[in-house]
Structure formats: structure tokens, C-alpha cells
């Protein structure tokens, strides 16, 4: 009989650190808290992929519910924004039209297909309908297989329609971007990628480690006690000051120094970053702040 597992699906808010990064990320801390509370060693099993769409997570969940997850296991679902689309089967990390360098990873015809999809086919109504069906699948399998309620954490603000009422799902209160990520800045209104980082976000999962230390144990407790995880209150705010990026000790303590160094070497971001969708003039208001993300760095 194996140890209980903490399965994780989601996007960049959920991905594990790279091998050389040894800081205790929040998912590991959640597993550690579960181990402490349950008296059993809980192992992390994450399939999260940076930049992925809900459909990719759902694909992983379909596999998970095909006999891999047991009633002893735990599950965290990081729910990325539903407007992300898993365009190409072999590129689950290309789903966000706000990638700055999306066109470097697809052919011209594929880029045209994405443009056409965004301009003429994609719409919030359909995105939300698909989201609701995905969550219904999770809720249904949870009930059918008598599993623990999964902890569902919204990465961004989004409409979840009836899925918010599915009692088989343990929804966190708030969302990671609006309630933790942006409030870490001394000025939450600035566009951190363009103005502050001049490159990709060097934080682990877009959060400083001080907040990992708060979020991880809380997530573990919510899973163990089957209670609501609060993302709104109790987190560190304003901890990224205007000059923090020049403070090496602070960098080592709070964020990923490898990414900071990589950003510094990337001349192309000196003049700021513009998302592919904005460059193409096809950015849509999906009621979230457009977020520029670069896939190519690292």
C-alpha cells in the first residue's frame, strides 16, 4: 500500500520549482502540513504545466480518475483562466494569447488559426459553459469514486456559474492573482512584467516565499479538515518595494535568483513587453487584467 499522494494540476501558480531551486514551494508545504496532520507521509505528485489551459488540466484529471487516485489521496486544482485554449496537442504550454512571444512557438498558419479563433469564435459564454462541464466532471467523479473533496483554487478571477454550487468541490475564497500576487507590490496597480521585472516574473508561482509559507500550510489544513481556504486575508502585502530588485539578500530570500539573472541578460525586454494578442490587435476584454508572460526565458 502506497503513501497518500497530493495530486496537483494547474498552471504557473502550481508548477514545481526547477531542480536547482531548492526553496520550499507552497505545494510541498501543503503536503508537509498534510503529513503532520494525518500522521502519514503525503507525497506530492504534480502534473501542472506552466501556461496550460483548463482543458489540459482536465485531460490530466481524466487520467487521474481512471484508477490513479484513491480515497486516501488529496487533490489541488489550480483553475487557470477559462479563456486559455489548448490549441495544439503537443504544446499544452501555448494556450495564453498574452504570451509575448507566442508566434515564436507556432507556425504562421497556426498563429492565423489562433487569431481567427480569438476574433470570431471564442467567447466568454462558451468558455464558461466548458468550465462548468469540466468542474461537473470532477464533481461527478469525486462523488462516484467516494474521493476526498478536491481543493479548487482560482488562479484568476472568473465566472464559474453553477459549478460554484457543486458541493463535491471545495472552492477557495478569492483568487491567487488578485488577492496575493498583485498585492505583494508596493503599488498593486503597476504592470509588474513591463515596469518592474523587465522579464518574466521571477517569483516562484508568482508569489514571494513569505506568502508561500502562509499559503502552503493553509492549503494543507483546508484539505485535511475539508474547510474553506481563504486567499483574501492574512497574506503579506506590499513586500516588493521599488528597490527590492537591487537587494540580493531579499532576492535570495523571496524570489528565484536564477530568473532574476536571466532577465538581466535578456536585452529584448529592456523596452518593455507587449503580449502577442495586443501586438496583433486582437486582445479581448475577458474581465481580467491582460497579463504579459514570456515563455521563452529560462
Amino acid at each position, binding site marked *: 500500500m502506497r503513501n497518500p499522494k497530493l495530486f496537483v494540476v494547474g498552471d504557473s501558480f502550481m508548477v514545481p520549482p526547477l531542480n536547482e531551486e531548492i526553496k520550499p514551494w507552497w505545494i510541498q508545504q501543503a503536503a508537509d502540513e498534510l503529513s503532520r496532520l494525518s500522521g502519514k507521509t503525503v507525497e506530492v505528485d504534480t502534473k501542472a504545466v506552466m501556461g496550460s489551459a483548463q482543458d489540459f488540466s482536465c*485531460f490530466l484529471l481524466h487520467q487521474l480518475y*481512471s484508477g490513479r487516485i484513491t480515497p486516501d489521496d488529496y487533490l489541488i486544482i489550480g483553475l487557470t483562466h477559462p479563456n486559455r*485554449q489548448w490549441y495544439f496537442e503537443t504544446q499544452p504550454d501555448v494556450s495564453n494569447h498574452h504570451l509575448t512571444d507566442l508566434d515564436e512557438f507556432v507556425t504562421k498558419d497556426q498563429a492565423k*488559426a489562433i487569431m481567427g479563433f480569438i476574433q470570431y*469564435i471564442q467567447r466568454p459564454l462558451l468558455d464558461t459553459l466548458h468550465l462548468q462541464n*469540466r468542474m*461537473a466532471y470532477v464533481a461527478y467523479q469525486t462523488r462516484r469514486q467516494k474521493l476526498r473533496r478536491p481543493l479548487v483554487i482560482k488562479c484568476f478571477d472568473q465566472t464559474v456559474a453553477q459549478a460554484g454550487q457543486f458541493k463535491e468541490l471545495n472552492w477557495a475564497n478569492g483568487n491567487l492573482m488578485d488577492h496575493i500576487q498583485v498585492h505583494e507590490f508596493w503599488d498593486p496597480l503597476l504592470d509588474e512584467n513591463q515596469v518592474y521585472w523587465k522579464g518574466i516574473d521571477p517569483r516562484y508561482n508568482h508569489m514571494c516565499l513569505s506568502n508561500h509559507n502562509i499559503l502552503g500550510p493553509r492549503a494543507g489544513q483546508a484539505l485535511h479538515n475539508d474547510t474553506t481556504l481563504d486567499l483574501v486575508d492574512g497574506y503579506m502585502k506590499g513586500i516588493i518595494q521599488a528597490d527590492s530588485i537591487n537587494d540580493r539578500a531579499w532576492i535570495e530570500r523571496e524570489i528565484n535568483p536564477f530568473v532574476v539573472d536571466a532577465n538581466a541578460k535578456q536585452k529584448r525586454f529592456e523596452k518593455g513587453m507587449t503580449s502577442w494578442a495586443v501586438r496583433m490587435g486582437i486582445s479581448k476584454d475577458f474581465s481580467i487584467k491582460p497579463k504579459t508572460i514570456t515563455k521563452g526565458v529560462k
Partner: protein
Amino acid sequence: MTYPAGRKLFILGDSFAACRPGTESAPTWHRLTADLLSQHHGEPVQLINSSLIGSAQDFCWGLLQEWFFNNAIGPDDYLVVALTHPSRYWFLERLPELTNVNIIDLDRHVTKEEATAIELFIKHIQRPNLDTMLLINRMAYLALMVNEQKLNRPLMINCFNQMIGHAEEFEELNWAKGNLFEDIQRGEFSDKDREVADVFWRGLDGRFNHMCLSNHKILAEKIATALITDSVLDITSGFVEKIIPDDWETNIEFQQTELDYEITLRNLDNRKQYKNSLLPWKNRRGITTNNK
């Protein structure tokens, strides 16, 4: 939206289930099923048929969401879903009936830019694996709601042969055996392949829901039994085969007893427009996909 009081029969689907306006009293399977259920219960069973010709699964699930949100379907009601092919995509919100790339004149209903977007979508983005996963998710939503609201098991009828994955095992759904296209529609021809090549009707199918009325009657009886007894509906046998005569174009009696006579006459009048252009839009554009 308000719904009538009393027991109801809800029907969702595509052209296999849609009721053409003005033909509400025709002896189609949906009308006959409601009548048979009414007889069985000794009280009127109201028919609420929201099926739409050409629609995609997403359109139906949008309606289901509305019905469940409003608690429109009660534990005494019945639901029949005629499940269209998952490769159909509700491309444009204003045109829920335009989802099938095999439509002959798809490009007449959309702008050039929209047609290009649809073409590139089906060439580069759409794929069967994703279609099937979305289908399974839809079935899970329905199964969850049936379980949650303690409803009668909905009768799920595949319109076409399609992969439904492990949704087949969802015990809250009552899956019919077989599919309407392969097991009834095509069997009505003396040569099953004639219609596939689209040389037969030269335009719109003159039948109600792609089936002759003799088969509507049989289908309705089978559906009513399956709904009342919560048993499996078998559409692979028991239907009239090779019923469409070769002289159907001049056989008035056949047209009046088995077909949608008004549509048949209209088609015969309009056949010239389809004389030289019977290829589906997808084929004319040279689009090849793995989807139907």
C-alpha cells in the same frame, strides 16, 4: 422562461429531433412519444422540444444549464437527448444552427473572415481527442444534475456513431443501443450508400428528422417503453428497411404518407440550385480532418 405545470417530456437535439415550425401535429417520434406517455399516465404530458436543426452539443448543454438552473425539470418529467456528433462546434453565437462543416452552403451564411476562422480552426485546432473529452464532461454535467436533483434517467440517443468514452459507464444516463444515422436513416434506402453520396435528395432530406413516418411510429413506441420502464432502447433492429422507393419523386402517396410533404415539394422545385454544387463546404475548400 416559464414552463407548463404537470408532467413534461423535454427533448434536446439536432435535426433528428427538431420540430419544423408548422408541423407540430405531425406524427413524428417526439409528438407520438408525448402522446404515448400521456396515455400511460392518464394525464397530458407536455412536450417541450427545444431541438434545433444543425446545432452542436454545446447549444444543447447551454439549454440544459438553463433548465437545471431554473429547476425546470422535475422528478416526474422525462428527458430525451438526441446526441449529435461532437465534432460539431457552435462557431458563432448568432448562428447555433451552423456547426457542421459538411453543410453545403456554410459560406453563404458567414462573412469571409468568419469562414476563414472556421476553416483554420478545424484544420489546426480541433481534434477528436478534445471533442471526446468535452463530450464526456458534458455527460458528467448531466449525470451530476440527474443525481443531484433525483431525476428520471435521461434517454441518450446517439444520432451518429461517435466515441463517448467512459461516459458510457455513467449509470445516471440511459444510453440507447445503436445510432439513428446508421441504424435507421441509412437503412431506409435500398442502397445504403446512395444518400451518403448526397445524390438522392439533391438538397434537404424530405423526411421528418431523416426518418420515414413508419419508423417514427416504431421509434416512439420504443422510446416511450424505455422511458417508462427505464430500460435500454434498441435502435439496431425492428425498424422498416428499404422503405424509400426508387420512384419517390413521382410517388405522391409515398410522399404524403412517409415524408414532410411540404418540404418535399419545395425541394423538388428548388433542385436546380443544387444541380452543380452538392459538395459540402468542407470538401469544396479541400479541408481534410479526422472528424466526421
